[in-house]
């Protein structure tokens, strides 16, 4: 026993020490991070963010230098109250705010940089940089900020803003004070535009002095500049569209049908992109954010979901012909309304009867389309099969779908399915039939589309059965390419031969139908007006508002160059606002000048502000006049 006790003690001690070392060196990896934080300092070199051009090569967005005052809290020397006072004056902040900022920075991390005050101009920087040596732990970080050459397209560009903690946790590339695209093109093409920041590693000693480069710089990288991009936007058209929408709410979206390129994407009301740059940024952003009535940050083209109204009849017609339940020359009778069960009637207006398909579209006859919608569904033994088949055709046009365009954010609208109605009517407890969903035939009822979806199906009609996914990227300049998904044609379920009758009908709309008031000499437009009922809630009560004015169109009739969808909220007749605006946009794009100045004056001088104030007035009001 006496011989072995010490021996065992040595072995046990050896095991304890081995276990401790194993824990420290192998199991617990936190020391590796601590040692990096301790001994290695990273200095970042920020590259230029890529420029943005329009389809004609006009520069839209470039950069301007901006200077942030940053702090690494653990490096701060205690300052006398006098020099704190002086420093605050330099930074143009109060001492209270200064203390708050430092407190927050310390809580975030004593070792990592935090922003003290951001976005100083070049002149301010010159003055500041002379005095910075006095304040240890603080330094100036140069960044590049956006410099907008135009005052339109804010909704397309989106904006860049400082990253927050949540983003840093998800994407470790970023650190406090870095800028990231938060909406629109800036967000979608963040990785392309951003480039890659360069980093230099320095070995530090315990007094936090640099004592040379870390590992001879093998981990150092040089910054890679962001890539310039060209958008499909026509800046002139965009600017003109925004002018037309002054004092209105709604959206315009125009595509080139042969490519899916977005020519213009306007949402109103909008704002000047310059508002979101510089020291006033957060004040301006807050103002835009809290404007919950006109909602300038809400993109009505991508996020606005509207009942499409009569333009949807074109799709009802195409599906009907594809399913073989109607021939384009078959004439149907309209008795001024459509009776869909018992005494329930869906009204129509005065027009000639009977009518074939083109005439039906030209006159926007509700009865005609209700009849063929009902046939389409009743071709199948159950309404469930019928409606799912109907939906199958519609989704091939990109409806009930985000389509895949490159502009965040978006909505996907709604095309109801059998499941939707089964739930709605509590099937199988209660049965439902095609006639219960009859409003879908004319783009009311449960059907909801975004203006982007409206223009997409219009482009598919213009192309007679296919479309490219709408996109805003024309070229990533340095690598000369765009994402592959925008170079692929998507086919609809409708055969090419069925489109002629619909296109003819849409031409008749313009020629002598509901939109003949917008005729432009020398341009053959195919279009369809829409007047969509809509409701709001006032004090919890469902109240009908003036109908939305909707118009979809493409032109010219042969070899179409532009497809367009316009929605003017509460504008009443489709031809009154949306039709005129679409006409002007088409003329502007095709001819470069406006001949229908009467129409232009009507729009430029017209305002719907009175209409929008009605629901907020607290008084009873009249609609649709």
């Amino acid at each position, binding site marked *: 026993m*006496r*011989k072995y*006790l*010490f*021996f065992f*003690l*040595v*072995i046990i*001690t*050896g095991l*304890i*020490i*081995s276990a*401790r*070392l*194993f824990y*420290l*060196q*192998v199991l*617990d990896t*936190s*020391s*590796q991070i*601590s*040692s*990096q934080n*301790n*001994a*290695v300092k990273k200095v970042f070199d920020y590259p230029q963010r890529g420029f943005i051009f329009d389809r004609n090569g006009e520069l839209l967005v470039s950069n301007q230098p901006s200077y942030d005052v940053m702090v690494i809290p653990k490096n701060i020397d205690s300052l006398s109250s006098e020099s704190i006072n002086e420093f605050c004056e330099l930074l143009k902040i109060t001492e209270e705010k200064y203390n708050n900022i430092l407190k927050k920075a310390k809580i975030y991390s004593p070792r990592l940089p935090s922003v003290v005050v951001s976005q100083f101009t070049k002149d301010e920087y010159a003055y500041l940089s002379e005095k910075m040596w006095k304040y240890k732990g603080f330094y100036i970080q140069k960044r590049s900020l956006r410099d907008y050459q135009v005052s339109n397209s804010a909704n397309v560009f989106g904006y860049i803003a400082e990253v927050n903690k949540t983003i840093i946790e998800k994407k470790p590339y970023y650190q406090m004070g870095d800028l990231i695209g938060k909406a629109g093109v800036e967000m979608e093409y963040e990785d392309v535009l951003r480039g890659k920041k360069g980093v230099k590693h320095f*070995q*530090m*000693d*315990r007094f936090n002095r640099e*004592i*040379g480069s*870390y*590992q001879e710089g093998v981990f150092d990288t040089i910054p890679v500049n962001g890539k310039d991009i060209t958008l499909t936007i026509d800046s002139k058209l965009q600017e003109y569209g925004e002018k037309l929408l002054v004092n209105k709410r709604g959206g315009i979206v125009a595509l080139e049908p042969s490519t899916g390129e977005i020519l213009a994407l306007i949402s109103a009301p909008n704002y000047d992109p310059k508002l979101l740059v510089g020291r006033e940024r957060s004040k301006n952003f807050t103002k835009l954010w809290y404007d919950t009535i006109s909602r300038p940050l809400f993109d009505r083209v991508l996020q606005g979901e509207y009942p499409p109204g009569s333009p949807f009849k074109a799709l009802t017609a195409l599906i009907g012909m594809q399913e073989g339940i109607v021939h384009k020359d078959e004439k149907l009778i309209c008795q001024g309304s459509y009776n869909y069960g018992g005494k329930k009637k869906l009204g129509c207006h005065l027009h000639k009867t009977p009518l074939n398909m083109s005439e039906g579209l030209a006159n926007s006859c509700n009865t005609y389309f209700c009849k063929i919608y009902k046939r389409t569904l009743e071709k199948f033994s159950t309404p469930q099969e019928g409606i799912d088949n109907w939906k199958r055709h519609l989704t091939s046009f990109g409806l009930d779908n985000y389509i895949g365009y490159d502009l965040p954010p978006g909505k996907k609208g709604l095309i109801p399915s059998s499941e939707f109605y089964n739930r709605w009517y509590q099937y199988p407890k209660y049965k439902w039939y095609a006639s219960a969903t009859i409003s879908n035939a004319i783009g009311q009822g449960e059907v909801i589309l975004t203006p982007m979806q409206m223009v997409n199906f219009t482009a598919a009609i213009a192309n007679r059965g296919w479309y490219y996914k709408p996109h805003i990227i024309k070229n990533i300049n340095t690598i000369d390419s765009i994402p592959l998904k925008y170079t692929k044609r998507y086919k609809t379920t409708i055969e090419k031969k069925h489109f002629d009758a619909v296109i003819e009908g849409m031409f008749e709309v313009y020629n002598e139908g509901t939109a003949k008031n917008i005729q432009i000499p020398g341009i053959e437009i195919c279009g369809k007006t829409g007047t969509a009922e809509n409701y709001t809630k006032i004090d919890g009560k469902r109240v009908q508002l003036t109908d939305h004015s909707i118009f979809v169109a493409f032109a010219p009739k042969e070899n179409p160059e532009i497809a367009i969808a316009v929605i003017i909220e509460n504008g009443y007749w489709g031809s009154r606002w949306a039709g005129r605006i679409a006409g002007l946009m088409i003329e502007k794009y095709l001819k470069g000048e406006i001949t229908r100045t009467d129409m232009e004056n009507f729009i430029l001088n017209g305002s719907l502000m009175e209409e929008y104030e009605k629901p907020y007035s607290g008084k009873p009001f009249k609609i649709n006049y």
Partner: protein
Amino acid sequence: MLKTKGSKYDWVTIFIYIALVAIGWINIYSASFNEASTSFFDVKQVYTKQLMFICLSVLLIIFILAIEAKFYERFSSIIYLIALFSLLGLFLFGKNINGATSWYAVGGFTIQPSEFAKVATSLALAKYVSDIQIDLLTYEDQIKSLIIIILPAILIIPQPDPGSALVYLALIFPLYREGLHVMYLLFGFIVAALFVATLSLGTVWVSLLILLIAGIIIFKTKKKSIFKYGILAIACIGFSISVNFIFDNVLEQRHRDRFNIVLGKQVDTKSIGYNTNQSEIAIGSGGWTGKGWLQGTQTKGKFVPEQDTDYIFSTVGEEWGFLGSMGVVVLFLFLIIRLLILSERQKSQFSRIYGYSVASILFFHFFINIGMVSGLLPTIGIPLPFFSYGGSGLWGFTILLFIFIRLDASNYINH
């Protein structure tokens, strides 16, 4: 028993010694490396000085091995007296370095007598206990042995260098080997365990635990032992209660801080806990295989104070990783076990006691030092044998070890 083949010196031990000194120097080079100085033979550099100390050690070794083994036994009392006087002399002629008067300054060099006193004390203890008249079961001889051990420690404490003084506790192991009652070891162990347990768990829990253990023992053994174990339990509880008093009133604040940091009661990475924290980061960041020689960022940035002396093991941990650290740990364990095996086969009791003393002292230094550097134990500033920078330390340990190698060699020749 005559060793028939091979050398009379134990080359296994000598090789481990050479390996430890060489690895130690490589790490001192890294820890004190300074990019500004390119000259290898710059005598201002710590690593150059250590290289000179190593060369002088070779001379020392030759000298020690050349002397007749009997000399060490015969002159042990005189050597012990010289050591005591050299420690006493510090009060008059000592030079104060970093707040401790532990050095004589001779010309440009400094010498730390406490490093050599370990050798003298081991020799004296071996000589005294190996006397045929001595019986460690008598109180008188127990007390006399204790005085031999305690005397140098008492002279070292006021330098102040409590760490070096603490090392003398290790000499309880050879005494136990030679017949000291196991109760002394057990007593020491229980006191240490109670001290730590009370500080980390609190008196109430420790008392309950003691009662539980006592209850189990009494229940398992005969009823007669109630009185005996009852008294013991009460004594333990009494000690536990007094621990708080000792801790709060007898110990100084810096000692309290060191305990609290190791027990995790106090998180402090800036002031007192800085050394331990930085050392743990250095070791921990080494991973499996380390960052490579001269590549340790903690070492380069000199984040660990005293890294070439007491904290040298953190360089090993950072630059050579778990595998390298384990290599060093295994070398030390192997050396200590080798010394134990050699001691057990000594014919003379003097050699055996001395061998045990050497093994105990090395073990104590090794455990306390690596325990401290890796954050297992409170900060007790003693060097890692053969590794840490310092002439006195290196020579002290070299003499300690090679006297035993000399004794071991004579073990065969005399028979």
